[in-house]
């Protein structure tokens, strides 16, 4: 039978506020303010004081420990007996805020808790351990830090291989399944044989397929954008709905900010997140830093982050990718809802509330809402202008169009808001997929869940350097290729679970996007041939109709992409960028370079994460509201 060591006698304690004032840690005016906030939010007084930076976390918990009549233990200087943790679930410890510290001489176990050490709690913990326990107080931060350190291997394993273990077929750890490898080899062999036996006929067929494939892929995007444009006045979430939300009903919201070698922007991050209209005591910001990134860590500490920010060290190990870091964040997240922002992001202040309204309106199957992304440094150079053209149509037309047509939505890199539980059920992010966000959107659809969009915008830094752009795009395109391969492992099953329309939509969007970039150079070559030598000179290899179809597809496809790009920036009221849409064919050539690099990397370095460098902009003062 489990015995329980006598828990500390909890006296009728002085209220926390009074105790803090008595110790000179708080003024009456500050307490009045905090109590006012408490009436609005219903949060704990301690959380409000800590989040507002009025009292240090350590001081709050020390005072609490006194009022609980319970010793305080500082876990940063206390070693933890890891043998006590072997059969415990770290998720549960993090949620319940306790951790075994060490065995005592009398056979009981010393337990650190960040919640009031009442008798019932002691009995519950003793029953969990099967040993008598003695409770001591500590801070919630100490407990989470200790869990992170003591369970580092478990967290790393879960973050890296969790999805693969649960559902191997949905992980990009293996690039090709056996069937896919066989099919790929067969197609390559047959194509080579066809070219050997009938080179002209094969060239003709291939050219026609390339031209039509390009047009089909681009037309699909154009049609979806047209559908999306219908919803430009349909506000997904109105200002009134957001204002109707009371602080008391707002849940705890976790913000994940994965950063790597971003010391130059991490200071601005604190400023940007401080603009969010959300009670700070209901925010949990996890800054996810790699173990070897001391530079960003020091910059983050130097930026004096508020108490709502927790710096989490991602355990070292391969693959060293953003999704792995996010999985570590997901492991530790306590929020009912969760969002990812990049370090340089500037979300619109009411975005979290807008997401909550959208979730409140949707059914339980909606696991995620995606906010729009756009750029604050659009006018910096030609590349940032083109980037802005592209993002404007993608997030303002394409995603709303996909949502309206109930097609799978590949999530964008940041500003994806999730129901945390649902995200865990889905298996989190695939650390082996280099566009883990797009993959997650498609996986949601494949598993019968839905993704929505909201009109709130997050302003990011557009890539302003060409080399950096190619690196970033090659990663995105490689990720789309990975995602296509992953979700087409069982095409029949996919059709059965999602239907023909969604499967086709997925194939055309996620598979068609890299394909269209890969097809651009051959089409440009054909175009150049017709320009330079004339169609008659190459009639033997490219009969008239092939050239005609290819060039017509190229012209029509490019015109369509130019047009949606124009309309996208027109909608965003960035009128001066409209004429830049004419540069779209050149922009696509850059994509093609990235696409061929991506294809090569898919073969030789499938899981390699091409890091995008942020903080390159010289347009620091750019304001998103003044494009």
């Amino acid at each position, binding site marked *: 039978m489990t015995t329980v060591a006598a828990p500390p006698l909890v006296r009728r304690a002085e209220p926390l506020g009074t105790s803090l004032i008595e110790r000179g840690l708080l003024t009456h005016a500050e307490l009045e303010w905090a109590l006012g906030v408490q009436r609005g939010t219903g949060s704990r007084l301690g959380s409000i004081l800590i989040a507002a930076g009025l009292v240090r976390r350590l001081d709050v918990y020390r005072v609490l420990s006194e009022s609980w009549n319970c010793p305080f233990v500082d876990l940063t200087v206390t070693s933890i007996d890891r043998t006590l943790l072997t059969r415990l679930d770290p998720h549960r410890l993090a949620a319940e805020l306790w951790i075994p510290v060490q065995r005592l001489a009398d056979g009981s176990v010393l337990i650190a808790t960040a919640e009031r050490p009442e008798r019932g709690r002691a009995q519950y913990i003793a029953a969990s351990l099967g040993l008598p326990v003695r409770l001591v107080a500590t801070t919630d931060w100490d407990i989470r830090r200790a869990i992170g350190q003591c369970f580092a291997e478990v967290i790393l394993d879960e973050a890296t291989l969790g999805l693969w273990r649960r559902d191997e077929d949905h992980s990009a750890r293996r690039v090709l399944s056996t069937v896919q490898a066989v099919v790929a080899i067969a197609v390559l062999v047959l194509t080579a044989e066809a070219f050997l036996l009938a080179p002209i006929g094969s060239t003709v067929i291939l050219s026609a397929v390339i031209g039509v494939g390009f047009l089909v892929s681009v037309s699909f995007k154009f049609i979806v954008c*047209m559908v999306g*444009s*219908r919803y*430009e*006045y*349909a506000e997904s979430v109105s200002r009134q709905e957001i204002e109707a939300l009371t602080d008391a009903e707002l849940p705890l919201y976790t913000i994940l900010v994965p950063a790597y070698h971003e010391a130059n922007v991490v200071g601005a991050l604190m400023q940007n997140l401080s603009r969010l209209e959300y009670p700070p005591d209901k925010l949990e910001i996890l800054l996810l830093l790699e173990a070897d990134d001391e530079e960003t860590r020091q910059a983050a500490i130097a930026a004096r982050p508020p108490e709502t920010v927790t710096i989490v060290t991602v355990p070292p190990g391969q693959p060293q990718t953003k999704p792995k870091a996010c999985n570590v964040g997901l492991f530790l997240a306590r929020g009912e809802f969760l969002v990812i922002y990049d370090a340089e992001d500037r979300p619109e202040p009411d975005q979290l509330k807008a997401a909550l309204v959208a979730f409140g309106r949707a059914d339980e199957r909606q696991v995620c809402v995606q906010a729009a992304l756009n750029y604050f440094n659009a006018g910096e150079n030609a590349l940032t202008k083109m980037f802005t053209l592209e993002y404007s149509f993608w997030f303002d037309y394409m995603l709303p169009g996909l949502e309206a047509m109930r097609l799978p939505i590949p999530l964008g890199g940041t500003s994806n808001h999730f129901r945390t539980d649902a995200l865990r059920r889905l298996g989190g992010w695939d650390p082996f997929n280099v566009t883990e966000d797009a993959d997650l959107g498609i996986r949601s659809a494949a598993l019968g869940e839905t993704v929505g969009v909201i009109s709130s915008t997050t302003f990011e830094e557009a890539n302003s350097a060409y080399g950096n752009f190619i690196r970033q795009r090659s990663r995105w395109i490689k990720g789309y290729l990975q995602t296509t391969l992953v979700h087409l492992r069982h095409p029949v099953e996919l059709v059965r679970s999602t239907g023909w329309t969604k499967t086709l939509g997925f194939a055309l969007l996620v598979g068609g996007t890299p394909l269209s970039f890969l097809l651009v150079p051959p089409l440009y070559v054909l175009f150049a041939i*017709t*320009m330079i030598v*004339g*169609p008659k000179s190459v*009639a033997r290899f490219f*009969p*008239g*109709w092939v*050239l*005609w179809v290819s*060039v*017509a597809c190229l*012209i*029509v496809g490019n*015109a369509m992409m*130019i*047009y949606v790009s*124009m*309309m996208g920036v*027109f*909608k965003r*009221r960035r*009128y*001066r960028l*409209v*004429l830049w849409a004419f540069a779209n064919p050149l922009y696509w050539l850059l994509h093609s370079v990235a696409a061929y690099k991506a294809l090569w990397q898919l073969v030789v370095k499938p899981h390699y994460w091409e890091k995008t460098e942020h903080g390159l902009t010289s347009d620091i003062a750019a304001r998103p509201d003044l494009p």
Partner: protein
Amino acid sequence: MASPATSLHAPTFLRWRTERWPRTNWGRWSVRLAVAVPFVALADLANTTTGPSVANDLLHRQAASLHWASGQLGWVAHAYPPVTIAVARLFPGGAQGLAIAGGLCTGILIQLTIERLMLRAVSVLAAVLLTAAVALTPAFWFVATQDFSAFLTLILLSVALTGLLDFTYNRSTESGFIAGIGFGLATMCDLAALPFAVAGALATLFVAPQAKAVREVARRRAAATVVLFPSAAALAGWAFLQWRFSGSWTRSFSSTDPGLLRFPGGLWISLARAASSVGHDLVFAPVLVVAAVVLYSRRPSSAMACLAFVGCAIVDLWVGAPLSGPTMVVLLGVVALALLPARLTTSEQVALWACVALQVAAAFGVLHFGLAPVADWTHRLFSIGPLAH
């Protein structure tokens, strides 16, 4: 700040995409089909009594003569207008089939016209009567069943104009898409649509809510670009293709419109003739005159839209790529209904209905004077066919 006149239009055209009549897709298509049935019957009747129309027959022959899958590329020079040729190629039944296709398309045009009027707080009865003043006329029957290419152009221009108004006044980019693509497709149906696209682009410069800020200038320029781009791209793309594959930039345009850029009698004389001819056609579209006057009384710059359409018709005729007389008459009637402002005063309503009566009388008057092809066709239809006394 927008002028007071802006508010007159804003709710009207904004609702165009959000409030439909009838509300459901099923309802809309049922109305279109129901409206189209008599016109399809008329097309069938005309086919059996007066034989296939010359215009539709020409289009069908042109489409049938193209061997696009052959190794030869000269066919590109004979493939303009590509949209109607593609339809003629795909739609079965030759010239008779095209007449039936035109009859079917009437449903779309009439439903859209009634819908637009109803969204301007016009009652169902009034909307139907106003639309009937255009649709129940020999010129409309003639164009719908005898000249598929012109009728398709007319429908596309009508759709583009409605989109243009919403885009200009409310900055709805969906309507911008519709306007641009409408003009672009119309240009690929008939070269005569190009001046209308240009006028549409210019309208965004002059008719938009007033503001002199630098940003507003950029906005207007951008708006003109997005309206004009599809037409310009389509035409430039087509010109490029025919140059590369047939050796001439303009052959297909001039083979469709042999008088293109010829200016018989000199520039000014041909311009005067064109203006006089279109002025004559205006006799058949008094509703457009009322619409222009009412628009001018509320907001002078908006009346530019009416004038622009008339100007485009003159330019078409002048440069030698004219819409046929009957098509022009029907187009002016449809444009008048598209531009008619909401909330007319009593005196404006009296003037409107008087002009409607006049328009109907003029429309049937063509049987005795003017618009010779319509008069001829109608006489043949009624005297030879089963409707003959």
